[in-house]
């Protein structure tokens, strides 16, 4: 456990070394927030709410999902690069689990992005737009739990696709397509409240709803009591299913691996 924590901290410190990146990250995040808030504002026009959803709720949904997707922004080509240049073999020699090491490094990087890109940008956003406050302390606590689960779901989806680099020449294209699916179907650009009924029905049986939308609804107080527990159970169920799939691909891939050259 201690070793994995070190991996996470190391990655966090790595990131701290690039000051310019840090500054750029804040500017880019703030601008992205600004663009979408302007778009939502213009879509709402003079309406106070649409289908019972207020502008503040939409803005809150966007800001929270952006924060989480920021945390998830890391090098998804890592495994492919390791396989291509053969350095994956070194990983197998180390006395730590490769999967857990990758996860802890990604978490370390995500923590950096949240603290140094997202929170400052959030500070700027609060100055010019009114967001919804958390519904309750318990809700806030449940949301953090749900965020962690959502993160794991997203991480597993990414890892499954990364393992395909054992078989494919390049996974860049598939990763890009996956990211589009995630950004649309998880409601990070257009909140799921506004999706057409049919599409919403399909999304509800995929893991996408559990990624960002469940934490957001908990934060806004839309899910309480049994509903909340059920939503968390669905998240855990997806982690189990995706975890099994990821493990199967990983095992098969490692067995198939042939590294050329010495």
């Amino acid at each position, binding site marked *: 456990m201690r070793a994995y924590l070190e991996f996470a901290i190391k990655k966090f410190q790595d990131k701290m070394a690039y000051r310019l990146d840090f500054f750029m990250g804040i500017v880019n995040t703030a601008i992205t927030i600004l663009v979408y808030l302007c778009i939502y504002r213009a879509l709402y026009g003079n309406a106070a709410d649409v289908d019972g959803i207020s502008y503040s709720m939409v803005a809150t949904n966007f800001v929270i999902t952006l924060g989480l997707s920021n945390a998830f922004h890391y090098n998804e080509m890592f495994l492919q690069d390791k396989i291509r240049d053969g350095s994956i073999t070194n990983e197998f020699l180390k006395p730590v689990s490769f999967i857990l090491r990758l996860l802890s490094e990604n978490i370390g990087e995500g923590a950096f992005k949240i603290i140094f890109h997202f929170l400052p940008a959030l500070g700027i956003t609060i100055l010019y737009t009114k967001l919804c406050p958390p519904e309750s302390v318990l809700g806030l606590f449940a949301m953090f739990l749900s965020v962690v689960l959502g993160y794991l779901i997203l991480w597993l989806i990414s890892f499954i696709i990364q393992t395909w680099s054992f078989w494919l020449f390049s996974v860049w294209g598939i990763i890009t397509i996956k990211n589009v699916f995630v950004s649309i179907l998880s409601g990070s650009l*257009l909140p799921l409240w506004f999706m057409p009924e049919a599409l919403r029905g399909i999304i509800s049986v995929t893991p996408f709803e559990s990624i960002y939308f469940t934490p957001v609804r908990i934060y806004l107080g839309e899910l309480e009591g049994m509903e909340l527990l059920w939503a968390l159970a669905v998240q855990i169920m997806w982690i189990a299913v995706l975890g099994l799939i990821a493990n199967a691909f990983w095992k098969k891939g490692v067995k198939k691996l042939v590294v050329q050259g010495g």
Partner: protein
Amino acid sequence: MGEVRIALQSLKMSFSTRMQYRVDSLVAALAVFIRESANIIVIYLALLKFDSINGWNVNEMLFLFSILFLTYAFVVSLFADLRDFSRMIREGRFDRLLVRPRGLLFQLILNNADLIASVGHGTLGVLLFLVSAGKVGIHWNFATILYYVCAIISGILIQGGMFIIFSSLSFYFVETNSIREIFYWNMRKFAGYPISIYHKLIQGLIIYVIPFAFVNYFPAQYLLRKPDMVNYNEIYIYIAPLVGIIVYLAAYAFWRVSVKRYYSTGN
């Protein structure tokens, strides 16, 4: 005539390079297409719910987007080397061009075309144009077609000119990617939507500093005449097809001055 032959040869080379990995290239082009469609799908779904954004309905929005993608398809095939210019300098590849008997910009523009991105953006642009152009009430006649073609060429020159300006900055600063990231890519995020929805400061930036408004917003206004045009001077929609030439000439002048400062990074 020799120039045209070199241009065609170079395009053929870019094409052959990509065709070494046929399936991968196809998947990559599809990926670019889908990645760029994300914003379109979102605005489409949003307008199913909200009807219009500042008076622009869904077809008008698609038309506005289509210009952005069509022009960019040409920009990435012509100006790919200038897009990646700081890397080119760092790796010392720019020196190679210095010893060849042709103009530097000429070589940069003709070498390397990012055909994957070009196909991805181009297909999307054509598709959006076909879907929307017949439904937005434009009376297509000689005058409007001429205006449209000039506006597209101007849009290509504006973006190409900006790439040249950002590349020229590499002769003064080591790191220019962040400047470009802030001023080019972020402005492009704004440009897909009617600029009237933004804060005055951003509108100023996008009209006068990084003139994306002349790439798609003002040309679209000439053809569509949406009510939010009252916020701007009417003259902008008439000069839009000319802005490209001005930006490009300014960029060219700046390049000529800057390139004199070049010392190789190598030994």
